């Protein structure tokens, strides 16, 4: 009984709006919340399997070359040490998101400083860590290794290239134009829970308890890395202490734990230390972005250029898709977009928090701010003037798009009409006050998802999928969808996640989890509703389910009575289809920000922010709002503090802990006003929902940067905007 749907036509019948339980959209608490705050949620390191041995990874301390352990016998003789493993199957770096196959497996061939090349396993964690610290490598380090992305000849990513019309001519003829180069720093995902795996074998069957975002893909990656069949691998990941992209693909600790557990015939846990997470988990690439905007007298864009340089290690296909939103957000006949990738030997790059838009949108929105000033047009109005009718490159329509509404509602709530209009002109004591805004945009994606829902004889429902909850609210929203469809109070619905033996979900990534898994649950519940109709001998449209009671026509009876001791099981399966190609789907929003910049020291404090977002149907206003709060918080970090620093001589990450890699702390984040617009996107999914997880970040830093300009009159085109980039130009220098 699988109810499959390929999203080929818009879901114009809005079934969830016809339901009666009233759960979807409600700001319900996460059911996993109490478990997490009271220590009862079992995270990857906390399974305490009997007879577990402890593994600690050892990093290479050269940037490129061949590593060899010089003192293996000495290490093996240390107290408690069980084995020192090197293996050609060890991962150079984690798999990219949705890879579904092993990443580069390079054994002792080193391609970046910090690459894990050996595993020391001992009876206790302390013994393993001490022995790992004592490992001495010799081997050959290569000279003349490139580390600086701007010092090598990059490869052009041809499938990202757009060259339409004549941008050079548009720039020449423009009444107003902007031509500027921006840079953004590399970022670490900085999830609270470091990467950890416990591997245990039962014959040739492997169980891996790990902290992962996408189990369907992770099973395939792990099996491929080990050279075993996928059906021999089970991954359990019921609770994930933050992912932010860093746990999309299988990472080095999982493969080494599996190899060690097989070799020793006992469970092995490998937990990466914070510094190792910085060294060896995929980072966000730094970017250089050349933006050109050409506009007529009224600020209408005639041309738009956005060409980016990013970096990655040799052999990695991922290239930070910087211009992803630039393709469709604004009009402009002449367009030149491009993406180039520099091959260097830093920690390899991958998906970190809204890859692409997170760094591309703030830059585009800073350039729009510059254009607004050049053309003397209100920045909000400038954006509204440039919203295209149809996709300006693909000439297809847009699905539901709430950009104008977000801009207007944000401006109203923030009091944009009372903003400072004279950059550097509003002073309060030591502080220069400024206001700025930016648009938000992120492409919407649906990914194949399956879920199983069981309506038990006693009248409660269970949702099962291998989907994960990485702190986002999956446990809550899937129960809400099922409860809504089956007419059950929330406490009669349980959602079980994070077990690869469950129906395959899309994984948490690309903001697609809620709409994809939510749709699969919706479809599974439709199947159960059909079965109920058969028992009631009624049409589906006549069925009302509410509070555990089924009503059709003038008959009404409790579900438990209706089931008569049977369980009803429904399976749902959603797949993306033509609606994803025939119209441009995205989510939209707007940010408004007030900053204070200290006129002596250049310290910036964000005083308040308003964010307004449209992401289709909101499944839970509380968890969706929290996602947006988190996104804006990361935006503040990107604007002001976050920067991976690489040593120029060997590329190693210098600030490899959370004391020196500065994510925003509570005091950096003011009260943030979040508004979620009422929206249904029929083209996006059968539940009219789109992804919201990453939207809050996709432009946020631009609003902060524009506010800093407004406060100081200083345009810093190099993120993060730390005080050293301001003090040279502040008054009194």
């Amino acid at each position, binding site marked *: 009984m699988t109810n499959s749907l390929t999203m080929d036509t818009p879901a114009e019948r809005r079934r969830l709006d016809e339901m009666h339980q009233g759960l979807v959209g409600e700001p319900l608490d996460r059911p996993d919340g109490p478990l997490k705050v009271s220590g009862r949620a079992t995270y990857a390191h906390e399974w305490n399997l009997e007879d577990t041995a402890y593994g600690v990874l050892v990093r290479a301390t050269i940037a490129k070359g061949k590593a060899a352990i010089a003192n293996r016998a000495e290490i093996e003789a240390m107290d408690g040490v069980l084995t020192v493993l090197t293996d050609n199957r060890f991962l150079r770096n984690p798999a990219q998101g949705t890879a579904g196959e092993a990443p580069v497996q390079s054994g002792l061939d080193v391609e970046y400083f910090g690459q894990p090349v050996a595993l020391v396993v001992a009876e206790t964690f302390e013994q393993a860590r*001490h022995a790992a610290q004592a490992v001495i490598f010799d081997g050959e380090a290569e000279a003349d290794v490139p580390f600086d992305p701007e010092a090598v000849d990059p490869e052009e990513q041809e499938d990202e290239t757009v060259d339409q019309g004549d941008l050079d001519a548009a720039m020449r003829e423009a009444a107003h134009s902007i031509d500027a180069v921006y840079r953004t720093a590399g970022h670490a995902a900085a999830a609270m829970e470091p990467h950890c795996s416990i591997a245990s074998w039962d014959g040739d069957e492997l169980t891996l308890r790990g902290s992962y975002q996408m189990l369907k893909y992770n099973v395939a990656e792990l099996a491929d890395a080990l050279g075993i069949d996928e059906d021999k691998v089970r991954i359990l990941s019921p609770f994930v202490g933050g992912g932010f992209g860093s746990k999309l693909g299988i990472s080095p600790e999982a493969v080494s734990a599996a190899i060690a557990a097989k070799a020793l015939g006992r469970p092995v846990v490998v937990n990466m230390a914070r510094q190792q997470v910085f060294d060896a988990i995929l980072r966000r690439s730094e970017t250089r972005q050349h933006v050109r905007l050409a506009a007529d007298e009224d600020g209408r864009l005639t041309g738009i250029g956005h060409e980016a340089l990013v970096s990655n290690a040799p052999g990695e296909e991922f290239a930070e898709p910087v211009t992803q939103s630039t393709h469709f957000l604004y009009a402009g006949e002449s367009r030149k977009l491009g993406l180039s990738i520099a091959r260097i030997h830093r920690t390899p790059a991958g998906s970190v928090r809204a890859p692409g838009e997170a760094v591309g949108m703030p830059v585009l929105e800073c350039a729009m701010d510059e254009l607004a000033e050049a053309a003397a047009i209100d920045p909000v109005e400038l954006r509204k003037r440039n919203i295209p009718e149809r996709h300006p490159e693909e000439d297809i329509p847009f699905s539901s798009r709430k950009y104008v509404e977000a801009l207007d509602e944000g401006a109203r709530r923030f009091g944009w009409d009372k903003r400072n209009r004279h950059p550097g002109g509003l002073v309060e004591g030591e502080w220069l006050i400024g206001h700025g805004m930016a648009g938000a945009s992120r492409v919407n994606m649906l990914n194949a998802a399956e879920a199983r829902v069981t309506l038990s004889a006693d009248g409660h429902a269970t949702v099962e999928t291998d989907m994960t909850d990485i702190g986002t609210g999956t446990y809550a929203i899937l129960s809400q969808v099922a409860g809504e469809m089956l007419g059950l109070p929330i406490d009669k619905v349980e959602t079980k996640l994070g077990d690869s033996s469950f129906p395959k979900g899309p994984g948490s990534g690309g903001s697609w989890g809620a709409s994809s898994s939510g749709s699969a649950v919706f479809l599974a519940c439709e199947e159960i509703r059909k079965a109920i109709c058969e028992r009631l001998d009624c049409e589906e449209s006549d069925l009302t389910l509410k509070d555990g009671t089924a009503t059709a026509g003038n008959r009404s009876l409790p579900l438990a009575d209706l089931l008569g001791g049977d369980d009803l099981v429904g399976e749902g399966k959603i797949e993306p289809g033509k609606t994803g190609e025939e119209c441009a789907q995205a989510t939209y929003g707007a940010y408004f920000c007030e900053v204070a910049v200290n006129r002596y020291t250049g*310290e910036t404090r964000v005083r308040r922010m308003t964010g307004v977002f449209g992401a289709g149907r909101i499944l839970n206003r509380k968890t969706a709002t929290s996602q947006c709060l988190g996104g804006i918080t990361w935006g503040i970090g990107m604007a002001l503090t976050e920067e991976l*620093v690489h040593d120029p001589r060997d590329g190693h990450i210098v*600030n490899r802990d959370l004391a020196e890699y*500065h994510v925003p702390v509570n*005091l950096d984040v003011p009260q943030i006003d979040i508004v979620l617009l009422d929206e249904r996107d029929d083209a996006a999914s059968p539940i009219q929902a789109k992804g919201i997880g990453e939207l809050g970040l996709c432009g946020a830093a631009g609003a902060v940067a524009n506010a800093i300009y407004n406060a100081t009159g200083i345009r810093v085109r190099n993120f993060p905007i730390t*005080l050293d980039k301001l003090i040279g130009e*502040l008054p*009194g220098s």
Partner: protein
Amino acid sequence: MKPFDYRRAESPSDATDAGARIIAGGTNLLDLMKLEIERPDTLIDINRLDLKAIEETEEGGLRIGALVTNSDCAADPRIRRDYGVLARAILAGASGQLRNKATTGGNLCQRTRCGYFYDTAMPCNKRDPGSGCQAKDGFNRIHAVLGASEACIATYPGDMAVAMTALDATVEIESKGGETRIVPVADFHRLPGDTPERDNVLDPGDLITAVTLPPPPGGVHLYRKVRDRASYAFALVSVAAVVTIADGRFERVALAFGGLAHKPWRDPRVEELLTGEEPGPALFDEAAEMLLADAEGHGHNDFKIPLAWRTLRAVLTEASERGDTA
């Protein structure tokens, strides 16, 4: 972490006789041990010693026991009333959790450090004397601009000692054999010279038993810490100021600086220059110029020189405005 013996000191002499590494709050030491930057054979735990009181001295000052936690010290009503600069400096440092564990003596002993010191794959003269300094030609944004040496350009990361330096506080040190000596906080930490492995003047077996504050200095107390985020970051520049203004002129000025050097930095010439003068922008610039005449950047930290200049100007401006209305 290297295996180590653990013993508990029941008396100060238990601690000093052993000549072993002393642990109190352990907020820095344990981190360093996990990374094997510190590899003690034996730890002597002094947490049970009777060093947890803040007592008034005969001179009218306060004697802060070495085991008084940073949280308790900053919350003490006498400290808050009479030594505001110290309470503010402590609260500007670390986090609530760390301050609950960190002690007065232990805070003084936190390592002067940098990212290369913390990475055992890197040469570092402080961690491994003679191995070289990677920071000079590496990433040195947080590093020293005053008093650095060829061997080391690390900065002292603390806040508490910067305020104590401005307050003319003294450290009470008990040595092996029970002898006690008194060292001004200003002289407790060292410049790196060619022995950067030594952060301070303690010898093996030395035990800090207390920090003594002189009688309340009065005046305006300011601690301004400039950093990359609003909390939980080391100072790029910090200024502790205790300033008295009378008849429109600086009567007494004490200034200490964090984030600039291998130790809390105090320059008596600057204080002399200001004393007796009428506050004003030209005077502040003259003071900053004197303070920073020998300052030298290493590339990424060049900005600290104008930042220190501007921060001093801000602090003196604020002090003179407050001093006039006091």
